[in-house]
């Protein structure tokens, strides 16, 4: 485990590194209560003094590459989990170097040498049975003192439940465990597995496996050679754009082939041949089966790291991706779900997004509010949904009743309405006036006066060509929705 620095961070100021959640922070920020994995908005509220930097996984991968290479000199088959974290199967290397402690110290010394060369580096080394235990052995070690765990089950049982957050990505489940009085993984492991599986389903089962030291279950299979995909380039690729395109295309091809065989990879080997140099190979691992996006990202990060560090002199002449650790995880679909159609739909939406722009492909979530415009929280398709500003389950007295208008302008539109003694008589639709057949309202809408909002009255106007939701404020009428 290696802590990466950001060269563009101001040297004196506290720094917060985020994507949609916190991925890194300096000590002052952590002292303010920020934790890794916390939502960005919450972290910014807790540490307003920090300089916020957006995470750049490609750059992180490039900076981490020398560390991976240094480990690979000592032990082959390094598996990169993410920039900053590698897993290394060491059974062979232990025999070669004469023991786990010796090997860990050797790696530690090599890391200490690199600390002076790679800015921001601090290596934490842990040895244990299984990726989950090894990751937390490293996380609980001190710099310069490798943590070699002999009793893996005992070590895991003492870990706090928060250790599961990264593997499960299910904060609510962890909160529920705490609420039930379970605080450590040992407490969790003592619960009957069947009960957890019944009550919490697959996430509960996975949590119990991890807490019991069984780690992720991967059904290893013999990998037919033809599942690997490769492509050669007559003109070696040197530009990053071309590399990105090739990475994406090849990753999609690999997963398409695997899907047809009913398997999903947890590990992939990325191999490139340089036009003038040695072939290079790197293995990446993921706790969940790789999706197209996840695999494309990793291939792209790795290739960028090699290209930018001059590791592929003359450009890339051949690229090969081979899967490993195949399992059928990720194929457990709901009764009515159709994964193939979902993947095809996602491709189609991605193409549409390229045409209309990211703000043109949207998904909505219900949120609270009195006007139709307020009751939908929009987020871009493919991105994490935005937080709801208002609780939809809270009572909203005075909310416009259902049925809701099917057409809602994003902002109120000016509307010409003729009144006779406070009664709407005609409404102008385009170039003609339509008589109002009947109406309901007015319903008072009290604005937040402290925020400069006006009071308004709402009417539902019914004409022979349809019904409209109309807002009247300060003597002027506005269209708020069409019951189309």
């Amino acid at each position: 485990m290696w802590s990466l620095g950001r060269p563009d961070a101001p040297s004196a100021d506290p720094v917060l590194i985020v994507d949609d959640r916190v991925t890194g922070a300096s000590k002052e920020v952590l002292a303010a209560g920020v934790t890794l994995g916390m939502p960005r908005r919450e972290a910014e509220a807790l540490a307003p003094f920090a300089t916020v930097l957006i995470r750049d996984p490609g750059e992180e991968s490039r900076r981490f590459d020398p560390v991976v290479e240094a480990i690979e000199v000592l032990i082959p088959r390094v598996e990169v989990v993410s920039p900053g974290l590698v897993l290394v199967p060491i059974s062979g290397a232990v025999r070669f170097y004469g023991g786990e402690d010796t090997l860990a110290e050797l790696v530690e010394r090599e890391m200490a040498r690199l600390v002076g060369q790679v800015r921001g580096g601090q290596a934490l080394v842990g040895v244990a049975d299984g990726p989950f235990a090894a990751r937390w052995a490293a996380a609980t070690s001190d710099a310069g003192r490798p943590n070699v765990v002999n009793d893996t089950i005992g070590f895991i049982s003492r870990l706090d439940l928060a250790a599961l957050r990264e593997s499960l990505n299910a904060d609510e489940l962890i909160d529920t465990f705490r609420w039930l009085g379970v605080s450590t993984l040992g407490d969790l492991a003592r619960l009957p597995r069947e009960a957890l599986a019944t009550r919490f389903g697959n996430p509960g089962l996975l949590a119990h496996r991890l807490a019991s030291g069984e780690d992720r279950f991967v059904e290893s299979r013999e990998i037919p050679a033809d599942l690997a995909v490769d492509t050669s380039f007559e003109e070696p690729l040197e530009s990053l754009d071309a590399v990105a395109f090739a990475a994406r295309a090849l990753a999609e091809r690999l997963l398409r082939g695997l899907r047809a065989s009913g398997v999903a990879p947890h590990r992939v080997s990325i191999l490139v041949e340089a036009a003038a140099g040695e072939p290079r190979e790197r293995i990446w691992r993921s706790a969940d089966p790789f999706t197209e996006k996840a695999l494309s990202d990793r291939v792209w990060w790795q290739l960028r790291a090699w290209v930018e560090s001059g590791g592929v002199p003359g450009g890339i002449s051949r690229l090969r991706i081979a899967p490993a650790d195949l399992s059928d995880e990720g194929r457990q679909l709901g009764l009515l779900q159709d994964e193939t159609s979902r993947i095809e739909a996602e491709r189609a939406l991605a193409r549409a997004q390229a045409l209309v722009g990211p703000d043109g492909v949207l998904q909505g979530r219900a949120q609270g509010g009195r006007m139709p415009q307020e009751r939908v929280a929009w987020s871009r398709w493919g991105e994490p949904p935005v937080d709801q500003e208002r609780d939809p389950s809270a009572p909203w007295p005075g909310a416009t009743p259902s049925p809701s208008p099917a057409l809602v302008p994003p902002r109120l539109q000016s509307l010409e309405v003729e009144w006779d003694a406070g009664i709407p008589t005609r409404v102008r639709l385009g170039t003609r006036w339509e008589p109002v057949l009947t109406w309901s309202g007015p319903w008072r809408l009290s604005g937040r006066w402290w925020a400069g909002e006006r009071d308004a009255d709402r009417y539902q106007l019914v004409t022979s060509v349809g019904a409209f939701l109309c807002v009247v404020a300060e003597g002027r009428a506005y269209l708020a929705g069409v019951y189309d």
Partner: protein
Amino acid sequence: MGIGTVTPFLDLREREEGFLHLLPGRVTELLGVPGTGLTRLGLRLLAAPSLVGPVVALDTRGWISPEAAWETGVTPENLVIVRCDQPQIWPKVTAALLEGVRALYAEVPVGAKDQDLRRLAALARARKVAVAMRPIGSGLPSGVAHLRLRALGVTWEGADQGHGQLRRRRLVLEASGKGAAGVSRRFEVEDEGSDVVRVVSHVVVGETRRAVG
């Protein structure tokens, strides 16, 4: 030899309810002026396909509200709204969507070319995509729609000279085209805001026919 009777009323009603389901590879045209309830009806047509995968509403005006779709039974997490306010790229965007989604409700902008619409209908057939098209201007050219649902009128219940609120809509539709077996049929759709939409046949035939078996 048995003697049975058939009530044409029931037969017709089943057929009319069938008009409110999208068929894979077929285009259903929703024709009528804004305000008649066709947007809500078009979104309602996406409800069944949204149970099994993503469905898309292609919005040319930027006004479609997902809340109305949720009320009609569309699964919220499976509804994606694509906004395309540039008529010149609308055919490309629609074609891109037809390549992958299973069901699409698309507003057709004013000035869309007949040639593009025919190509898109052919693409929908080839890809087995269930499509509802709502032309904002004039209707679709002949041969594009398998079924045309034309809104003839809408009446609302619930609001009364300032009292009450809009509760129930009765939409009179006329179905025509191949999907209606070449015969124009009129029927009513009652909508109370929930996902239950009732079809009320206008064609009531009192007599019964005798079947010989």
